């Protein structure tokens, strides 16, 4: 069926989720190119609810020919995983591998990658507000510029970023609080005082990219996914890391939360997978879980000959049982604080559920949003910023409640930034130097890369100071583990240069 129905099929409200705002866009931008094409999954396996409970005994299957409480109920899959693997993996082998991981949990590092689709305008996210820069910014962006201080008079304001010597400010939709993103968390609460001390857990690179800018969505994405300035690479940068340092048997080690695989985790040999959805919704009425009542109705006995009614009641009981089991994973029910009606929220919640199941997942990829803001940028970018900042905060809190936050880093990036000067459609065209952020309590929060200022190159594009592979390199060497030069062609790349002089990504 059409794309329009897909997102809502699981039972969300029918309003259009934020992040699917359709502002003016260039014709070829409508095409999504972030996912692999022409690579078919080698198999699709159902995900049993028991898997999400983390296989408490480490035993995924009952002994052959015997039934036990752990018998996977036929038809009680909570979702499907599309497996991409060089070798054919059966349902049993997938869950045996996952169960083996669950049985011997180790605190391994996990990277969640959120790709902002379309080329996010970093310049209207982190605004240069120094006396030297702001007038230039204003002059170039009159029709969409951020104002200093609180929003008002139809203009969106800014909030100073601590630890930047007054040179930079957050656009207010990225900031918590009434009049900003409306929530109690946002980039400001994650960023803290920017010192990298306790409570300063968000590193910000205002303009990371590569040079020279290639203004094509498709080539630029390919570079970012490949971790190389080469759009013919057959593998993603994380895919190569998995091939070298990951498992050759557990496809759940890297999960694209989507219907197909992200190019960034495309591997040569290591198995990976895509999971689009888990039916972890419960029977709900106006936000109230009625699983218990429904299960009660399902328990009524039908006459034996009536297979239809028997099936219906049994299915309802089973669904309520499964839903209860999934929602109760690790004692954490649906975490509060996520923005409602957003695909980003549901994808992050799914990520949190998978990660807390301890199935050996190291990498999660999420594609989100519609940031190709050629026109009416304020009305499409700002609501997405509000969702993004709130969702990142909620995700961190959710992971903390599950006791795994210290194992997780979240990377946010896009394929490029946008032209410094705005256009006549109240938007911006393809540019360079995109906003990159890394979140997590292990992160040395603060301004992790210099802002290039608004004196652009001859094409009016930002001149990025941080190479995007500098960030990847740090993620590999400091977090995932391994030799970055074996993963990123053309390295080693310059190290991180923080505003405060530091050179580390992590605390």
């Amino acid at each position, binding site marked *: *069926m*059409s794309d*329009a*129905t*897909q997102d*809502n*099929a*699981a*039972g969300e*409200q*029918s309003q259009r989720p934020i992040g699917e705002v359709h502002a003016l866009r260039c014709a070829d931008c409508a095409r999504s190119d972030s996912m692999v094409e022409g690579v078919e999954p080698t198999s699709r396996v159902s995900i049993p609810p028991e898997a999400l409970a983390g296989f408490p005994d480490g035993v995924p299957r009952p002994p052959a020919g015997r039934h036990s409480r752990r018998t996977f109920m036929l*038809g*009680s*899959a*909570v979702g499907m995983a599309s497996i991409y693997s060089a070798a054919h993996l059966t349902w049993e082998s997938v869950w045996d591998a996952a169960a083996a991981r669950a049985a011997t949990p180790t605190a391994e590092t996990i990277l969640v990658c959120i790709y902002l689709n379309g080329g996010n305008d970093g310049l209207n996210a982190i605004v240069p507000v120094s006396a030297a820069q702001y007038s230039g910014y204003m002059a170039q962006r009159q029709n969409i510029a951020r104002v200093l201080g609180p929003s008002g008079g139809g203009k969106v304001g800014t909030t100073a970023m601590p630890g930047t010597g007054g040179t930079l400010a957050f656009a207010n939709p990225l900031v918590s609080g009434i009049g900003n993103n409306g929530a109690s968390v946002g980039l400001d609460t994650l960023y803290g005082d920017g010192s990298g001390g306790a409570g300063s857990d968000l590193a910000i690179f205002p303009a990371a990219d590569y040079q020279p800018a290639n203004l094509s969505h498709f080539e630029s994405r390919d570079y970012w996914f490949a971790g190389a300035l080469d759009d013919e690479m057959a593998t993603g940068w994380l895919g190569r890391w998995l091939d070298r340092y990951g498992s050759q048997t557990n496809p759940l080690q890297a999960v694209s939360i989507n219907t197909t695989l992200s190019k960034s985790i495309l591997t040569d040999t290591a198995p990976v997978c895509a999971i689009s959805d888990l*039916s972890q*919704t419960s*029977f*709900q*009425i*106006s936000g*109230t879980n*009625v699983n218990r*009542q*429904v299960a*009660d*109705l*399902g328990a*009524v*006995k*039908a*006459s034996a*000959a*009536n*297979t*239809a*009614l028997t*099936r*219906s*009641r049994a*299915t*309802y009981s*089973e*669904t309520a049982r*499964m*839903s209860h089991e999934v929602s109760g994973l690790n004692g954490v029910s649906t975490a509060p604080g996520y923005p409602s009606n957003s695909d980003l929220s549901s994808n992050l919640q799914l990520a949190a559920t998978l990660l807390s199941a301890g199935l050996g997942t190291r990498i999660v990829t999420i594609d989100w949003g519609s940031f190709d803001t050629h026109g009416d940028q304020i009305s499409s970018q700002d609501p997405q910023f509000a969702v993004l900042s709130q969702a990142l905060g909620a995700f961190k809190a959710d992971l903390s409640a599950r006791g795994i936050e210290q194992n997780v880093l979240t990377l946010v990036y896009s394929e490029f930034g946008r032209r410094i000067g705005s256009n006549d459609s109240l938007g911006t065209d393809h540019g360079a130097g995109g906003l990159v952020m890394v979140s997590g309590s292990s992160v040395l929060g603060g301004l992790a890369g210099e802002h290039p200022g608004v004196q652009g190159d001859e094409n009016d594009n930002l001149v990025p100071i941080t190479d995007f592979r500098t960030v990847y390199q740090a993620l590999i060497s400091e977090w995932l583990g391994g030799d970055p030069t074996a993963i990123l062609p053309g390295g080693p790349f310059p190290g991180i240069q923080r505003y405060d002089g530091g050179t580390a990504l992590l605390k």
Partner: protein
Amino acid sequence: MRMSKSAANPGGQKGKRGLVGVRSHRLHRPPAELAGGSITASTPMSPEMVDRLFWRAGFGPTNADREQWTGNTLGAAVKWLLSTPAAYSGTPGTDQGAALDPTGNDSDLVLSWVDQMNRSINPFVERMTFFWHEHWANSRESVSPPQLLMTQTELFRKYADFATHPKANFADMAYAVTIDPSMLRYLTGELNVRGAPNENYAREFMELFTLGVTDAAGKPNYSQTDVEQLAKAFSGWQINDTNPNNVYSYFTQSRWYDGPKLVFGEFSNLTAAEAVKLVLTRRAHAPFIVNAIWNEFIVSLPDAATLKSLTHLYTSSGMQIRPLMQAILMHPLLFESLEEPNMVKSPVVYVVGALRAMGIQITDTTASDYLDGMGELPYFPPTVAGWEGGLSWLNTDTALARFNFISALLQDAKIKDLQGETAAEAYARAYVAVGSPWLAPATQAKIKRFAAAAQSSTPESRINRQVTLRALILAGPDAQVM
């Protein structure tokens, strides 16, 4: 790619593959009093009979339907269903305030038909039209432009609207579908040309649409030779879709295989029309189509005598559909297990039934979104064999989709707070508001107990109680059967 189908018919409403020769698999014996034929045209209908008839022949009764038909005879109701023309009440549905644009996007294509079902004055016409879509299943996945499918639906409607086409017969229909642009595209008949025969349609025509693979005794109904030779007879047809709003098929003599074809052991220079006729004269055809229609409406399989009399009725009337429908809708087995309904509602019947029961118009894509989640998106059958149907409609995913669909409808419903409303009154109001559907006594008792335990001290809690009661009544397990 086609799914294989099991032979029995538990839960009813299954497809047409392999329906012949399965009497030994019968799951239900009719109650003695019904088998004896105590229900006739002159039987005055109880409310339970009205419910049964309207669920099976339509999308369930509204409270008004139930009131209107209770006490009237079965014969009068069936006559009304089979002689009231296609017509629609109210104003057409919309999507986010805009008129539905069925040729512009596929959600609206689906919604426009659901909207017609929802507003149909005689629900039988749309129900039967949809049955033909399930039978001659064509999918939007490989049929473009969408106008082809819409035109095909209009064609099907001629064989469902017996007021306008009282003598509609399957022979005419089979030929019309054979040269229908949508079918020519879906089963690649347009590529079927002399010198390069394409067997696709010829095979499905016999296997899925008219004969079935084997007869009652398990003997093959046709051979591979028959398929190959029949394909030659069907050659030569193409589609002109230059104007998507006026698509038509046409015959090109030079593309047709002009020569003898050996079908069913005899040589003859068959045209497509003659080939259709020839296949329909096979002994296997009448029981096949009678079974296919019967199984859409009745759970227990017909016994030998019933099948014989129905096939006789069908053939002796010149393959007319109306007399057959009349006999099926008045058959005592339609009313078996009245005290505990025994057929799973298909998603389309469930969705449209809920909309009609609550008097809700199509105003957004909620219906199509959830139909997708429930596994039956009109115009998107999974295979040429249609939907598997029956018990397969219900699994943990689709149960949630069914429940949450009703939840979504209720979220938008304007529900009044009645201060001082007792639990019993709240239950009674909720029950009527969702069309007074069948609930087992034990289920009623449980929901009433829930009502009694629910918070009711504030307006919010009373409204919440009302919404929850309505959902438990209309979206629970008992509401999935008819």
